[in-house]
């Protein structure tokens, strides 16, 4: 939950009166609320925390961070099946 993951904004639309973006995290696409970054644009990179875009990030930094997270298995931790992860934890 504590991880903030950088991703690329693929699409932005209004839903239920809220600005929602589709963000790509190195292959995993998620719906993300971008109310806190009102001028976020398609094509930009953003730092996402529990489904909310909280800051912008330059492309190079975003790519490096994503590559690191991927390598460390952190993306699976963040986006994988939590029950399975917790069950696996329990049998470590």
């Amino acid at each position, binding site marked *: 939950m504590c991880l903030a993951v950088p991703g690329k904004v693929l699409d932005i639309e209004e839903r239920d009166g809220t600005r929602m973006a589709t963000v790509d995290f190195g292959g995993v696409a998620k719906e993300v609320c971008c109310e806190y970054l009102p001028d976020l644009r398609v094509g930009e990179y953003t730092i996402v925390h529990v489904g909310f875009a909280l800051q912008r990030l330059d492309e190079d930094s975003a790519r490096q961070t994503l590559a*690191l997270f991927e390598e460390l298995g952190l993306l699976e931790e963040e986006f994988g099946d939590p029950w399975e992860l917790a069950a696996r934890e329990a049998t470590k």
Partner: protein
Amino acid sequence: MKYIDEFQDPELARRLLDDIHAIVTRPWALMEVCGGQTHSIIRHGIDQLLPDGIELIHGPGCPVCVTPLEVIDKALEIASRKDVIFCSYGDMLRVPGTGRDLFQVRSEGGDVRVVYSPLDALRIAQQHPERQVVFFGIGFETTAPPNAMTVHQAKKLGIGNFSLLVSHVRVPPAIEAIMQSESCRVQGFLAAGHVCSVMGTGEYPPLAERFRVPIVVTGFEPLDVLEGVRRAVRQLERGEHTVDNAYARVVPPEGNPAAKAMLADIFEVTDRAWRGIGVIPGSGWRLAERYREFDAEHRFSVTGIDTREPVECRSGEVLQGLIKPHECEAFGTTCTPRTPLGATMVSSEGACAAYYLYRRLGTTSGAVIPSGTATMAARTSGSAGSTSEPAPLEGSPVV
């Protein structure tokens, strides 16, 4: 444990380390505030690559670890109710309450669901108007804006069956409490980068000034941590104590103004108990009076909770940086990630779990320090910093 070659940019890591080794003349004790940083430090063996006298004290910045037992027990109680769908982040599933955890509540028939975002919980509430949907809203300043927005949405859309069990904590009052503690050895802080990405850096200069400690806003990735350490040590060696932003690519000085405005609307500052530490004045947020209808603590009267911590668990001392995890008797014997006695053994951001997962062999032989690196020119004894090496991890399991 880790080789410097495993860093993403070994060249840069080497340069940062060389620089740290070159500027250090005496021992210093730094506290990394955030659990993500602790995780990174232990996983990558950063503490073992630093000069001997530089001690990293692991701070209380793992929200899973500091959520008070009483709140966990309340969560377990609410989650057990027939009419409730209880939504939580996956990290909270195995946090021990008094005698059980959310995982068990679920196996006993409780409707516990793991969500990625609090907005998912709100959606579940919309889909199940006949049920009460409760979201477990814990975390630091980074996790609070999403929860604030969710309550804002619930009110706007008139979703009456949604509520939040809130236990938010704030970093600056914790820094204040740590500095005021009599046993405090901390001489400089690596502040939590993502907390500052929301709150900005404005709350820290008064603390740096008052306690005469450098506060360096630092990221989580190994190279970020090295850079944070380098800047903090540089200030200490020069006798400075300012707020420095080593994570400017994510942290503008003002933070995120829209998120701060929402926080100010939805929450109000309150005293908060930190698990293992105790009550820290003004260190938390709760829902403001006008949003009480969305407060799970008000919606469900939970009484008769009798909290009991296992006596052998020393996570309070771990969280205050007074002992390292392996100094706890239970570490790796009766307490493991599989059978955690304390919350710090659950989340991988908890210091106990980080030590367990990445310090099994506990040797420093793997830490390859670039040749030609300067050792500490002199070690003065006047510093409060400890120069003792961490004890070998006896009793810790070997893979």
